[in-house]
């Protein structure tokens, strides 16, 4: 099976280790991974800010970059949603482009969903030790309806998965929102951190690098002991025989 990795701009520029983890897990499961280097950003930043023209430009580029890929794997629920759901809206009024967007939408998968539903190898990772709680990234959950997949992967990797209260509540990131209204954003985040802490887990895992950056940023500021991981990092660590 072949898959092109869409790293997302956050992974590309801030969290390359997440990209490495995704590649490691996919390869271990026997997937042939490629990385079309011309990729940059899916356009979500612009789209969520209301800058539709700029978002369209970015989307057009992605249609080209991933034109021939059999599967496109994205380690971020919101970028995957952008490509699977919102591209269709962006190109609503252009039948030719809509057709291409539809094709890309069908070939695009969020990473955990790809592992469970396409590769079908939920047992690819083993040997993870530690207690993990999963934060439902909003777009993974409500645009893509992904919630069982990451939990199953973590569990089968050997993690003890504990549920936090309101795991499906937003962490307060919201892209531009986090810098435009920092007082509201951090108030929401506080509640998330408290819920994470209350589980007694060693780590919180999620499927979106936006949430990851947000939660990590606060944990680092507060000097919290828990770690914030992308699910792929937890799985890669499992393979390498590490815990949280």
């Amino acid at each position, binding site marked *: 099976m072949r898959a092109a990795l869409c790293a997302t701009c956050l*992974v590309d520029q801030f969290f*390359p280790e997440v990209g490495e983890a995704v590649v490691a897990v996919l390869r271990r499961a026997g997937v042939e991974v490629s990385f079309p280097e011309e990729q940059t950003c899916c356009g979500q930043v612009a789209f969520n800010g209301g800058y539709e023209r700029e978002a369209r430009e970015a989307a057009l580029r992605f249609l080209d970059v991933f034109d021939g890929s059999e599967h496109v794997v994205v380690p971020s629920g919101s970028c995957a949603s952008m490509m699977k759901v919102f591209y269709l809206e962006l190109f609503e009024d252009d039948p030719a482009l809509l057709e291409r967007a539809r094709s890309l939408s069908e070939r695009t998968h969020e990473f955990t969903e790809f592992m469970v539903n396409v590769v079908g190898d939920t047992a690819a990772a083993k040997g993870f030790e530690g207690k993990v709680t999963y934060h439902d990234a909003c777009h993974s959950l409500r645009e893509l309806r992904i919630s069982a997949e990451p939990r199953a992967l973590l569990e089968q990797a050997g993690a003890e998965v504990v549920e936090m209260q309101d795991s499906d509540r937003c962490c307060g990131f919201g892209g531009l929102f986090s810098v435009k209204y920092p007082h509201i954003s951090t108030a929401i985040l506080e509640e998330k951190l408290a819920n994470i802490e209350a589980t007694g887990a060693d780590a919180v895992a999620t499927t979106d690098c936006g949430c990851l950056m947000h939660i990590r940023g606060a944990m680092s500021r507060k000097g919290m002991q828990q770690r914030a991981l992308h699910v792929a990092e937890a799985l890669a660590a499992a393979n390498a025989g590490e815990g949280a």
Partner: protein
Amino acid sequence: MSVRTAQFRSASAQAVADPKLQTALERVMGHFTEARAHAIEEFPGDSWEQLRERASAIKAHTLEHLDYYLELVDKSVTRNGGHVHFAADAEEAARIVLDIAKQAEAKQVIKSKSMVSEEMELNRRFEEAGVEPVETDLGEYIIQLAGETPFHIIAPAMHKSRQEVSALFQQWLKSAPTNEIKQLCAIARDALREKFRTADMGVSGANFVVAETGTVVLVTNEGNGRMTTSLPRVHVAISGIEKVIPAIEDVSLFLRLLPRSATGQRITSYNSFVSGPRAQSDEDGPEEFHLVLVDNGRLNLLRDPEFREALKCIRCGACLNTCPVYRKIGGHAYGWVYSGPIGAVITPMLTGVKGAKDLPYASTLCGACRDVCPVKIDLPRLLLRLRQREAEGDPARERSSTWLERMLMGRWSNAVKTREAMERSARLGRFLQRPMERSGRIRRLPVPVLSGWSRGRDFPPLARKSFAQVWRERLAQEPSE
């Protein structure tokens, strides 16, 4: 109600810093969301989903043919012996109601809950005209005494503690201090009972207006709605034009959706159906019945195919209860009658985008509201559309996104045009971040717009090597196993 949307930033900052408010929000919102979830669990399979689909479709159909249904309302109410008034805006609506009061020589008016009357600032208008208005919904009564506006669509005084309520009652009703809810209710009941007996006119809202029968449907828990509409000589119901539904058969569907979505109740204590003044055979009921149908910006929404669906709203409040932003800032910060996700959508459309420019952006677009809305309004989508119009500049309105933000967006757009451009920007970024970076994190980010991040959160520095570089140097060569 005066529009204070421009103070969103300071008002919301005050709210998140108010521990009492935070406790109240956590408690009440937590209770509502849990009760709702519990009530919906009873529906097997996708049967709840089907109810939502049907309700959404009925609303869509009614809005599509609103002219027809409004005419039908007019005919039906007239046939029942009532009067229908159409008001273009809040001002005209208030004038109509004041005229009715004047004709009826009303000195005392009792009101049951009506959000549209808040749009009209009806209480102030009554007072200026020498008429005494008394809110009879307990929550509304409390905030009327406090001189405030509703904090929540269905729980207007949820931010008030027992102690505060007791203090208000002591001040206005000369009652003895107490923190017992039961006693507080008894005090209010005593005070209101007298008003019910002596009022000349009752003003109510309308949860639904049934076109075919000319019936106003009121959903309440306190019975005050029934007294307001049946004891005084005159009953005036005020409704937004979007509250119309076609037929009496449709009511049961909405009565299943509304209380469950709002408070998690299977049914509210009172469901009143008011179809005009008392008939000759009736023993009681008002002698006069008026229905005031208010536009106040709604037709603009109706004419706008991208926003029309916002008129499907049945004001259940579920989107407020689940909204992470509302749960932190509460209702007053939104600056007008409606708050939460639905307020963030309709307030800019009804009061003008310019003053309310924060509202469409004050959302994480998490989508929780869309999932609970009983009529399936795609609220995040509507917020996004408002942002689009802002960013692109709507010919009908002034643009409100800042030049700084547009400039940054332009920068971003150039930086992601090609891999090479992105690497070039990142190289510059890595160079610039060096003085700010301390042991793998950036505590303060002195960059316009982005600086807000530094509040409570560290920023990750750009990685030494982008993933693309790592790929080129190491990963591309490694074969799959």
